[in-house]
């Protein structure tokens, strides 16, 4: 029996590229298009080498026509292809809402299940560094309210690769949301061809006192905060939902049932957010859960200002997560919390650097 190859260190961007390349190698009906897929930047490296390997018929640049190109993906999928459509800026995908909501999400349903619509929309979400109100948006909160879609938000390289392959192979329209802020984060990827099932959460860290639920870029923030909370004597369980649609509610409830409270993190404006909905769903599922706290950390209800100064307190981060949990346990100003703050300062800090 051949020995299993050593896990490799890959960035999330490299893992997405690798997952895409493997899926294209295995199935010639997979095509990839979008603005920048063949340009010098190759969508932040995520499409590097693909046109060279698979040719311009399967990997191609397109006009700046987000709405039509979304509908074209639906038609191509109906005709037997498996399109992947990239958006370097998720914000531009708002132009495609008709074709996403009225076509992609419904083409199977509204014809009584005659068709399958296998396609992937890749949305890359900007953050900070002056990206401002129209270059920092994400829309998972909108999309969870669109029946017919699946919505995926990877937080690490192994998941990014496996979720990408699973999304491409899924027979439903999948919106694959990538946080640009963690594209460069490196973590271990096994050399196997496993898929991550869409709709299954992952326990990123075991704990007994507090449950922290997050997706995407907020998972590493939660893990940093959890490290500091250990020093403050609070044991945190961190669960990475991996998909926001469908939601693995059972996995969250298992955690909630053993801890004393839960904190939901969400990169979305608070009102009507996915996170707010998740808090409500958990509480509805556990109406008799008494005494336990529940908290939400999300964006304020105003768009991102461009000003770096004004942005410094905008996002949920390890500091806010730490403070929220400390406050929930009534530990403010305690000796334990000071020990935690020192550990928080020591937690590996690699802030996102621009441009882009």
């Amino acid at each position, binding site marked *: 029996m051949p020995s299993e190859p050593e896990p490799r260190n890959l960035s999330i961007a490299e893992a997405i590229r690798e997952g895409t390349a493997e899926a294209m190698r295995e199935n010639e009906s997979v095509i990839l298009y979008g603005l920048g897929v063949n340009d010098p930047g190759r969508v932040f490296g995520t499409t590097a080498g693909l046109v060279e390997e698979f040719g311009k018929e399967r990997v191609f640049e397109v006009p700046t026509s987000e709405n039509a190109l*979304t*509908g074209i993906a*639906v038609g191509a999928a109906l005709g037997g*292809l498996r399109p992947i459509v990239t958006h370097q800026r998720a914000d531009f995908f708002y132009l495609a809402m008709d074709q996403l909501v009225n076509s992609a999400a419904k083409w199977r349903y509204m014809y*009584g299940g005659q068709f399958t619509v296998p396609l992937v929309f890749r949305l890359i979400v900007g953050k900070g560094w002056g990206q401002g109100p129209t270059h920092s948006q994400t829309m998972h909160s909108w999309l969870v309210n669109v029946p017919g879609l699946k919505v995926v938000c990877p937080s690490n390289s192994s998941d990014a690769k496996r979720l990408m392959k699973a999304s491409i192979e899924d027979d439903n329209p999948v919106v694959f949301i990538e946080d640009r802020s963690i594209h460069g984060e490196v973590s271990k990827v096994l050399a196997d061809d496993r898929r991550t099932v869409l709709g299954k959460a992952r326990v990123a860290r075991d704990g007994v006192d507090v449950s922290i639920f997050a997706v995407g870029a907020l998972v590493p923030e939660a893990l940093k905060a959890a490290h500091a909370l250990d020093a403050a004597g609070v044991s945190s369980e961190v669960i990475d939902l991996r998909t926001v649609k469908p939601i693995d509610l059972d996995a969250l409830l298992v955690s909630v049932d053993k801890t004393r409270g839960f904190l939901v993190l969400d990169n979305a404006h608070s009102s009507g957010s996915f996170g707010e909905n998740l808090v409500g769903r958990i509480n509805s599922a556990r109406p008799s859960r008494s005494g336990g706290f529940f908290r939400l950390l999300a964006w304020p209800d105003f768009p991102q200002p461009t000003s770096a100064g004004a942005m410094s307190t905008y996002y949920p981060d390890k500091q806010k997560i730490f403070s929220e949990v400390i406050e929930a346990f009534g530990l403010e100003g305690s000796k334990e919390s000071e020990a935690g703050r020192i550990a928080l300062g020591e937690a590996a800090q690699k802030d996102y650097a621009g441009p882009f």
Partner: protein
Amino acid sequence: MSEIRDLFRQMLRIRMVEEAIADRYKEQEMRCPVHLSIGQEGPAAAFSLVASKRDYAVSTHRAHAHYLAKGGDLKAMVAELYGKVTGCSKGIGGSMHLADKAVGFMGSSAIVGNSIPVGVGLGLSIQIRQTNALSWVFLGDAATEEGVYYESVNFSVLKKLPVLFMCENNGFSVYSDESVRRPPNQKIFEVAEFLGCKATQVDGNNPTESHRVVSEMADYVRSGGGPGLIEFHTFRLREHCGPNFDDHLDYRSPEYLARWRDSDPISLLGEQLQSASDAAWASSVREAIEVEIDDAFAAAAAARYPTSEECAEVLYAK
């Protein structure tokens, strides 16, 4: 002669089916908006003679004619209007969301312009998979006012896709005539031509002329030259949505109505079928269609509604 008979039979069948819908609409059993093609059957008839079974087609809110012309199952269509589980879309879609995958009728959409890029994507799949088919995209004149139309035509021209845009211009977007929607000298087919699409116009109420134009354009598109567009000038006899006539609303002038009523495509073509044998043929065709229609409506009325669970079941592919 067979061309005239074929065109006539197609148009007559569409007309009779839709008149049956209109007649029974007041029973409140077909509880979905219906947009009838009565008066503008010409383009659909021409299409039916030229399209092959492996071709794809998509259409609009006004899709009955195109669905039937592509060979879509009549019983399944009528059941769909009744909201029954035996409908082509299991009763989930209604009149505005018809599809029959078995004959390549890949869907129709209520949102103006919505199915245009889907048809273009089907064209892309034909090109990449080299299946030697054609993607027919039906649209109305108002759809050419949507941004996605221009995006879609541009992409088709850029990629030389095997797509044939069938634009039925009946002059009105609901009650709004062309004068409030585009400048007087802007012609739909000329704009398409400017975008690089081979384009032409034809009197859509002249079925034989429409058939000639559609055949030529389909040959061109099949030869790989790129997409084509045909602007059919035609006329909707009844209201935009619903079974009635709405001439009393006066949004179309009496002169306009009189001119178009005089060029009803079925009456005009019928004038060429006046021999004794033609008359006998026409009457047997009519009888056969009547039987088919009665069967379809009886089956639809007898069928059951889908359950809520059956609707939820189809949402995701397993």
